[in-house]
């Protein structure tokens, strides 16, 4: 029997993690993500899992990577300052192809900024924040229900592609309470196993090697150094490095259509909003209050890898309007893919764009 609750977004995220089989949480509580750690601390031991309150966020992500290599589904949750501290080891997770989930309940930055206010300022950091070339997956919930659903999905994607996967929420979605239906069971996709006769970092057509966690019987060397398919460091051969890094990027980027998750409203529209996360709710309100097929809406639930083909769903688009709670981070990505004007509608300070603000922004393009 599924159950219906009136629940906070952050708690729904923790419930999603538990439903997905997450059995390790290493974290350092930080506003506005703290309720995720609190819920995991309370619930994980009873579910046979482990919660560790780490000394900082460097330790948190390191512990999560270690736990993932024991075969556990592992997660941490943080916000801006903690997210910045995690960057080096996020690159390590990408390089070692460690499946793990990192939740960022975004708040106003830079630096300690606005601890209790919402923002979407880390949308490029989750894609490019660690050094070197790699690719990641980022999902953006816009409701309490999606805090649950997309957390489950993040674990499945992390396992499917052996890549750190981000749930990029914000303070508004993390702290609001709404009705949520929690199903009895959720679909769980674990990593493909490392087959007999295959090397630990030898990938097939999908470019994702089979996973043999520690204790599963295979002796595996795991390193952040450039490595060959055996996992052994090979740091000077240009070809080895290029082959590895190209595969790390391509395994995610070549699966853009498989990972893509978006909603299209009014595909014949000329004026098209592109959103993700909380601002999508304002656009939905505008379209509800002003039913007009000339106003389109592309709502991305998966922001990275960026599904540029989703923009083609609006063949008559004359302008793309992009309300984001940042200075236009994803609008730069949209701009790269279309010939039409792309207009950022930035909102800083912690409040969501109001419907009136979007109506004013639309006037110039009517």
């Amino acid at each position, binding site marked *: 029997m599924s159950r*219906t*609750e*009136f629940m906070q977004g952050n708690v729904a995220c923790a419930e999603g993690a538990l439903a997905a089989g997450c059995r390790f949480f290493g974290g350092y509580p930080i*506003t*506005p993500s703290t309720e995720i750690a609190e819920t995991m601390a309370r619930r994980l031991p009873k579910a046979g899992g482990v919660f560790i309150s780490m000394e900082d966020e460097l330790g948190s992500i390191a512990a999560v990577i270690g736990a993932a290599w024991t075969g556990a589904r592992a997660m941490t949750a943080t916000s801006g300052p903690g997210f910045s501290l995690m960057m080096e080891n996020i690159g390590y997770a990408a390089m070692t192809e460690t499946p793990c989930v990192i939740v960022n309940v975004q708040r106003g930055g830079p630096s300690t900024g606005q601890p*209790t206010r919402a923002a979407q300022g880390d949308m490029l950091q989750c894609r490019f924040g660690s050094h070197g070339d790699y690719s990641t997956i980022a999902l953006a919930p816009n409701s309490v229900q999606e805090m649950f659903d997309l957390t489950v999905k993040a674990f499945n994607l992390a396992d499917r592609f052996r890549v750190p996967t981000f749930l990029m929420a914000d*303070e*508004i979605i993390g*702290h*609001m*309470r*709404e*009705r949520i239906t929690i199903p009895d069971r959720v679909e769980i996709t674990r990593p493909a196993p490392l087959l007999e006769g295959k090397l630990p970092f030898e990938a097939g057509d999908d470019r994702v090697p089979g996973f043999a966690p520690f204790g599963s019987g295979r002796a595996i060397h795991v390193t952040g150094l450039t490595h060959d398919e055996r996992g052994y460091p090979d740091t000077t051969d240009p070809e080895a490095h290029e082959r590895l890094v190209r595969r790390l990027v391509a395994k995610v980027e070549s699966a853009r259509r498989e990972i893509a998750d978006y909603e299209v409203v009014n595909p014949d529209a000329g004026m098209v909003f592109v959103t993700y996360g*909380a601002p999508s*709710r*304002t656009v*939905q*309100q505008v379209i*509800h209050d002003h039913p007009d097929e000339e106003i389109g809406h592309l709502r991305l639930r998966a922001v990275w890898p960026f599904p540029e083909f989703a923009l083609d769903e609006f063949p008559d688009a004359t302008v793309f309007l992009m309300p984001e709670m940042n200075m236009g981070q994803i609008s730069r990505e949209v701009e790269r893919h279309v010939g039409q004007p792309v207009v950022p509608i930035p909102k800083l300070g912690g*409040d*969501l764009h*109001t*419907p009136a603000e979007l109506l004013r922004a639309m006037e110039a393009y009517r």
Partner: protein
Amino acid sequence: MRHEIRFSGYGGQGIILSSVILGRAAALYDNKYAVQTQVYGPEARGGASMGQVVIDDEPILFPEVTDPDIYVIMSRQGFEKYGIRAREDAFMLIDADLVRSRPACRYCEIPATSEAKNTLGREIVANIVMIGALVATTGVVSRDAIERAVLDSVPKGTEGLNQRAMKRGFELGERACNQ
């Protein structure tokens, strides 16, 4: 119809809990939609606290409260910070013992804190008295829904006290409305 309800008082009165209970009543027991939000800040016991709820028969898209039509105000500071700019056609419930000022909109005075202290014997249930009065005066959720939401939100062993507080709130609300 969309209603935006704002609760304000001081930390420790159960202002946030009141907003959660109201949202819960609407979303789980009245078959409506509700979004509850609150001001997160460094406020602790004594500081101005604020929680708000959007209730609608249709799914709620824009989740934030921008211009409440219903207010529940339980402290002077709460009135000054979160109530004083109420629009003219709004409706406000005021804990008459704690707030001296009166708004420009329609309002009802509910002596929730003194009733809780003197009649019910526990000041801590003043917020539940206010919730009862809110439901009696506005009908924003049904009495049955609020009763169920109160009962599953309060600590075990305090159900009777909270039920009495809510019923007292219903009576105070009915009386205030008839004035």
